[in-house]
């Protein structure tokens, strides 16, 4: 028989007594009082508005094509006055403070996009939330696979800022062709605009 060369755990008797322990859970810092800011006043339509597009990243292989397609549609179909396109330096972080301030001073409404991964989706959601806190009606765009991350950020931030989902069959961060991207943008844009405006239905220049 093989000999055991070292002690193995054996049974123990514990003379235990009551214990008082401290909770290890998070103590979140004070979140801004957002009750009055979560739903800033929205324009009736986007016509003549300055739209901020906070661009975390575009999906697939076409760098920024998603953002470009979105901006093109906004200009051509919804007669926006100006688009302030902010291409973030890092998808997991907010824009630079000076850029952010410029956006807040100029924009009438905000769109943050695109949440196709864990950190970029949560940060994309947070970008929209922080724009709302600054009084700018905003919406985030993310993929349905990232719904958990987006919802988590809304819970953490105690915010009800809206988001619009891109759904299958286009994968969250896979290779999208330009025609696929165009189709996605055209499909979601009415919902995006509806979340930014108080009109009953988004107004397109062309049907």
């Amino acid at each position, binding site marked *: 028989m093989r000999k055991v060369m070292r002690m193995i755990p054996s049974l123990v008797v*514990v003379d235990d007594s009551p*214990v008082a*322990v*401290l909770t*290890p859970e998070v103590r979140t810092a004070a979140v801004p009082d957002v009750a009055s800011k979560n739903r800033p006043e929205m324009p009736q339509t986007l016509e003549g508005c300055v739209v901020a597009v906070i661009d975390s990243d575009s999906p697939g292989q076409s760098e920024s094509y998603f953002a470009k397609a979105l901006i093109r549609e906004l200009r051509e179909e919804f007669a926006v006055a100006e688009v302030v396109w902010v291409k973030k330096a890092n998808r997991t972080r907010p824009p630079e403070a000076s850029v952010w301030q410029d956006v807040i001073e100029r924009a009438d409404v905000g769109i943050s996009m695109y949440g196709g991964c*864990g950190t970029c989706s949560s940060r994309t959601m947070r970008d929209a939330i922080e724009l709302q806190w600054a009084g700018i009606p905003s919406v985030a765009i993310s993929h349905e696979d990232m719904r*958990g991350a987006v919802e988590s950020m809304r819970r953490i*931030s105690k915010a009800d800022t809206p988001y619009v989902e891109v759904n299958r069959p286009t994968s969250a961060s896979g290779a999208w062709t330009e025609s696929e991207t165009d189709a996605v943008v055209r499909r979601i844009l009415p919902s995006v605009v509806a979340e930014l405006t108080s009109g009953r239905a988004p107004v397109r220049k062309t049907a």
Partner: protein
Amino acid sequence: VTIDLGSPVHRYQDSRGFVEDAFNQGWADGLPVMPPTVDGVRAILEQLGLAPDSVLGDIPSQDITVTAEQAVVNAVMAGCRPEQMSLALGAVRAFLAPNANAHGVIGSVVSPAFMVLVNGPARATLGINCGAGCFGPGTRANAAVGHALRLVIRNCCNAVPGLADRAVFSQPARYSFCFGEDEEASDWVPLHVERGFGTDENVVTVSSFIEMHALRDVESVAPEVLLTQLALVARHRPIDTDHVLGADRTAVFVIGPEHRTLLVRAGWTKEDVRAYLYPRLTAPPTYVDEQGRPFGWGSGPEGGVAESTWALPDPKGVLLATAGGAGLGLSFVFYPHWSASVSERF
């Protein structure tokens, strides 16, 4: 003076009741935890001379501020002894530094783990393993300190699967990954000294990594051959440009004893190793497609090896440490997420 603690208190009939409830409450990560008693936590804070509400750092994207009390509570749960608390809290401070990008590494689908690398004289007194088996189980200090950081991340930073933690697979190193540099094994300049700290200072360096990859080389006899192999292996996957970190971008190499011996015997310092590696890590890829993108590691379209791109702007971003036990020629490279290695005194 008795210090006032801010955390809610829970009472249990015995410690087993707490351990079971910790799982029910979601305070444990799957491993059993120790009870953070009121008296024990208070005594540790007094020993450290820290007010309970001392801020160790924050995560602005999530409105999170982590205090000394919270960190000590979780470090006790992880099994840290009182003398290991200073190290554990140093790791928490490093993790929460802006360049560590806590929000990014917690929420990533690729699920980075966190290397806690210890330098300085305290390695010996705290019982940090720097030698054989140092990456894995077997040493209380390594396991407890790494686990302490994990519990802080879980309990204080919303990093619960299904909440802020969005890992597709996650990885085992997320339970605990702490080791020390084997400073005494050679005359190489320790990592913390290369990063500007004093030889006698105790420093913890935290690095998030999405993957670790080994070079197993028992045949090379010349430093140039060994390090060429190491650079080639390292470039099996890319390091992407991080415009926020810029020159602060880092990648960690841990050189094993056999490789270290080869290099030291040939008279190579860490600076020599870095100077040889850096251009080979960052040279433009041999093969790119029509859009200028590298093919990625593997066979090139015309034979040979295609390398990934390493966007590491500064040679100082090549962090070199040495650790591990004898027996095989192994060294490791750790690929960073959107974060830099951060070093903190403890």
